[in-house]
């Protein structure tokens, strides 16, 4: 009798432990879904920057807005095709990031926004972005729309003086902006961030799914 009694007690105790573990576990899971406890490696800009919104033209010549990319994690980068060094380097690195993400990368889009719409027509942009990654989209459009998008994310660009032969450079912000599937601005990366950090954070963001 005494034996049976102690066994029931033991069972009850172990049940209690399991229950506690379950509660603790689910609390941890809830915690993980809350942004503050997500171990982002890049700069978390959640709530500090406006949602993805623009009116531009894609590299097929089709008018597009920010809404068209809802459902995809968006990696936004400003540049121009006549930039021989930093822009291709950044896009090549983003291509490697996408490759490292494997099948998850299909849930992401690289939006390369031209700060040189005079030279970067949809045709030029199409050939350019496709030389880097199949998930890259080249966006161009009216100068004021590009300026509006750039200002929206406190980005900047300046056309440098003509070198005399019609060639000119455009200085531009080197930041990379990351938006979630709902178009919310989430993370900010700079060329100084290691590639591993971008892979790590995009992996997290792509695994999280749409929150709404």
């Amino acid at each position: 009798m005494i034996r049976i009694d102690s066994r029931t007690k033991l069972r009850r105790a172990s049940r209690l432990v399991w229950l506690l573990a379950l509660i603790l576990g689910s609390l941890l899971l809830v915690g993980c879904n809350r942004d503050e406890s997500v171990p982002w490696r890049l700069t978390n800009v959640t709530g500090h920057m406006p949602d993805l919104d623009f009116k531009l033209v894609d590299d097929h010549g089709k008018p597009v807005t920010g809404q068209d990319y809802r459902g995809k994690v968006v990696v936004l980068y400003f540049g121009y095709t006549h930039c021989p060094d930093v822009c291709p380097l950044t896009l090549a690195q983003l291509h490697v990031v996408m490759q490292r993400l494997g099948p998850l990368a299909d849930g992401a889009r690289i939006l390369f926004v031209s700060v040189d719409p005079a030279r970067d027509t949809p045709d030029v942009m199409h050939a350019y972005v496709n030389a880097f990654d199949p998930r890259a989209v080249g966006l161009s459009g009216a100068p004021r729309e590009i300026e509006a998008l750039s200002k929206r994310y406190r980005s900047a660009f300046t056309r440098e003086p003509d070198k005399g032969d019609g060639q000119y450079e455009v200085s531009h912000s080197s930041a990379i902006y990351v938006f979630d599937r709902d178009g919310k601005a989430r993370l900010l990366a700079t060329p100084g961030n290691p590639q591993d950090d971008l892979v790590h954070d995009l992996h997290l963001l792509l695994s999280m799914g749409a929150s709404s």
Partner: protein
Amino acid sequence: MSFRLPVTRSLPLLLAGILLAGGVHATEAEHIRASQAWLRVLPGDLPAGAYVTLENTGDQPASLRGAESTNYASVMLHQSSTEGGMGRMNAVDRLVVPAHGKASLAPGGYHLMLMKAASAVKPGDKVKLALVFGDGSKLDVDFLARPANATDIGAGAEHAH
């Protein structure tokens, strides 16, 4: 006496002069070894960036001033920077390769900007550039054309000289 002494005195000086002249005779280019020379091919006639590692085996610093090409009408030595979060590109006068030291032209830093290609360059092609140094001497280097999305990681550019 007063005639012979200056000759014996000046002999070491004369010898030193001959040695110095011999040293000067070797050009900057002759002391430079180029490796990992490659260029990034972009679609259309977009300007391309070319990269190379230079090693100076000489006792004197050398300086790269630019390059010449039979295929590109314009080649400029540039430096990219992302200071203050702004991506910029500046033309630079020279890149010093220290005596018994190295200097690298690599993505995101120093590079040769190649413009106005006479004929299209495809990945896998070898493009000859003549690197021009401070004393006017030149070094022919074969640059391997690599795809647009090539990175430095696992650069397969073989030793070129």
